[in-house]
């Protein structure tokens, strides 16, 4: 689609003047020789390839690792803006955890008639064997990624909640490392909040959720599906930074009521498992009897307090976009406050009136599958061809519950570096939130995803989106 004239650029005002947050960056940028910047641009790519920060893209023939494009212009957020955002994020994450607890216990929100029961009854991520069980510390979503989009100076919206296994935090960390080595002078000029202690905070937060059976210092392990997973780099990176073991399902076994990992000295108990595998691959005895993956019996150990699984099984319920559409009600129900961060307006196609509206306005809307992710299986009305719209209409009509629709937002833009200098591109933001019984901890920054193509609104890395370092300025 063509850029909408009313889109909000985070660096430049419509009159061409520079917004305050970007003032220092802009004056630095104007002092730089264009050649030097171009050279730095290539250096960055070489350094990413060498260190192996790559991303496997599903559907590629050779299962090769690809680089996510990195843009070297930082996305800058002022201290005051960030403070406001964190309040909203914290409120939302608190509500998400309370909602999870309620869903797997008394279901008061359903009794109160605020959300319909079918919402989770039809949800494949709903796990009956979590009913009546409270995870150690009462924490369901230890690590959450809240996807935010912006449309104006004070207009931020939550686009998606990632409560199951949000990824991308390694890019937040590596992007910062790269920026610090490329432009050290900028950091002395600009006072940027550090992000590098995220792994330490993660380790601390996970340890604070250790199960009752823990003896001594909690042993934490990161559970990965293996090297062919698209986020393997991140799994290895986080384990490395936390000083935790990186385990696969085959390394783990249930022994004497604990989960043991096979070390060169025999099996040793693991207290907290930061799992980066789906629920289905956790326990073949509980979830998927045909699966050879997973650790047979781990759910029994979990329910008996022998291990902490982070995030808790069954948290995927909250990633459902039909649940998302009820988040304003959910936040209000559990916090007693109005949501500080609004949702994007959402039509539930399961409701006849909404469906009629969506069908009438397909060419203007974005339609998403309720269980979809990664930008797959969605329709972006304004850029779709007639034929794509017609095909999608048929899918929508045959299974309306499977879809929600949203207006095509005029996402804010940030400049990226191109051969011809700075050019605006659409962005979103995923801050990372850690939850423990002690605190909700939000790292100042996050992953900014950027659509590298001019005018494009798709920022997903699986579809050619890139990333930027996100700078929260110090007061």
């Amino acid at each position, binding site marked *: 689609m063509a850029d909408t004239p009313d889109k909000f650029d985070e660096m430049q005002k419509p009159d061409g003047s520079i917004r305050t947050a970007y003032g220092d960056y802009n004056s630095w940028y104007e002092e730089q020789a264009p050649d030097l910047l171009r050279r730095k641009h290539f250096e960055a790519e070489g350094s990413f*390839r060498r260190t192996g920060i790559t991303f496997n893209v599903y559907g590629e023939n050779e299962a090769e690792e690809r680089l996510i494009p990195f843009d070297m212009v930082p996305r800058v957020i002022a201290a005051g803006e960030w403070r406001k955002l964190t309040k909203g994020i914290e409120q939302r994450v608190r509500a998400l955890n309370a909602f999870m607890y309620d869903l797997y216990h008394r279901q008061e929100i359903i009794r109160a008639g605020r959300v319909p029961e079918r919402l989770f009854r039809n949800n494949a991520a709903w796990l009956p064997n979590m009913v009546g069980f409270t995870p150690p510390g009462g924490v369901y979503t230890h690590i959450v990624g809240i996807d935010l989009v912006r449309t104006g100076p004070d207009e931020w919206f939550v686009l998606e909640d990632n409560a199951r296994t949000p990824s991308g935090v390694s890019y937040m960390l590596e992007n910062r490392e790269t920026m610090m080595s490329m432009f050290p002078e900028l950091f002395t000029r600009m006072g940027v909040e550090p992000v590098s202690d995220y792994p330490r905070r993660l380790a601390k937060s996970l340890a604070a959720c250790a199960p009752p059976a823990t003896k001594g210092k909690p042993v934490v392990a990161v559970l990965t599906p293996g*090297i062919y997973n698209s986020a393997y780099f991140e799994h290895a990176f986080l384990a490395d930074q936390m000083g935790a*073991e990186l385990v696969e399902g085959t*390394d783990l076994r249930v022994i004497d009521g604990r989960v043991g990992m096979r*070390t*060169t*000295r025999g099996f040793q108990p693991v207290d907290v498992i930061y799992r980066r595998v789906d629920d289905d691959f956790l326990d073949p005895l509980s979830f998927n009897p045909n699966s050879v993956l997973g650790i047979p019996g781990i759910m029994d150990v979990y329910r008996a307090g022998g291990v902490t699984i982070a995030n808790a099984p069954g948290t995927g319920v909250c990633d459902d976009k039909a649940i998302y559409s009820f988040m304003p009600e959910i936040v209000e129900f559990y916090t007693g406050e109005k949501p500080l961060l609004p949702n994007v307006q959402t039509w539930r196609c399961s409701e006849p009136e909404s469906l009629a509206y969506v069908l009438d306005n397909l060419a203007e809307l974005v339609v998403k599958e309720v269980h979809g992710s990664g930008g797959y299986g969605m329709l972006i009305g304004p850029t779709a061809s007639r034929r794509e719209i017609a095909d999608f209409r048929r899918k929508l009509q045959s299974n309306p519950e499977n879809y929600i629709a949203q207006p095509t937002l005029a996402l804010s833009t940030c400049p990226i570096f191109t051969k011809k200098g700075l050019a605006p591109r659409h962005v979103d933001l995923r801050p990372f939130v850690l939850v423990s019984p002690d605190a909700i901890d939000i790292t100042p920054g996050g992953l900014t995803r950027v659509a590298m193509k001019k005018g494009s609104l798709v920022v997903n890395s699986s579809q050619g989106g890139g990333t930027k370092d996100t700078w929260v300025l110090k007061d």
Partner: protein
Amino acid sequence: MLGRTANGLFWMFRYLERAENTARLLDAGLRMALTRDLASSQEEWRSVIQTAGQKTSYEKKFDTYTGSQTWNFILRDKENPASVMQMLDSVRTNARLSRNAISSELWEAINETWMQIKEMLSRPVTQSTVGQVVTAVRRGGTLVHGAMAGSMLRSEGYHFARAGTFLERGESTARILDIKYYLLLPSFSYVGSTHDTGQWDTVLRSVSGDRGYRFLNAGQIDARGIVEFLLLDTRFPRSLAFCHASVRENLRSLAKIHGVEARSNLLMREADTRIADMTVDAVFEMGLHRFLIEYMNSNAAIAAAIAEDYRFTG
């Protein structure tokens, strides 16, 4: 450390060693072929393929031996499961598996080597580029070993990696000798005249031992001296005795770290009597071929015991 990670480190370095040794073999073959007429250079390439242990898979695909066919098969043929590229892929895959147990410097050395050689092998290798590829493989090995020496903790992971390196290296030297052993039999060397010393030179070159041997023997070249050098000289870093001592040292460190002697340590002690106390006369008396076969069997048994002692797979 996880058993799976220990396995990854062990095999990462076995594959690296194997890739390097294959490159050395190819290098010796290249040199030999240049100094021969067509018929005997074909014979030389056949011998290179055989020594690399790739005769069956090669002959499935080709029925002639030419230089370019041979080196492309050894280096990059997708139908060759033991091509140098395949081995380097395995090195890198194992490095990714063990990413947490290796230093960033080591990972970057492996990754850079892999990227460079993958690029070089993305198209057929010609006579004018084959030398560069062989050099790049050897340099890559040097870079990786150097990065490890300078940056890895001397904890168990290091010793698994080193044990893998020297088990593979000893195996490789033994295999080369076993295939060329007839050239080195005492009865054969008396004949002398039918085969010039060029063949002996190739054996030495295949293990990069030509210069070292000449230095230690003042240029005097004879079969008995070569056998002694390759089997028993503890100064030569690819001799069986040297590799054996290095494996033993690393297994001893592992036992110390774990506070307990394992079966692999016992097997190693048994093997000591077969190699540390050996003389070249005793080897010839026993039969060179038999000696080598026993050495290789004992090597395989030690490798299996390590995998079991340290729970590599189960």
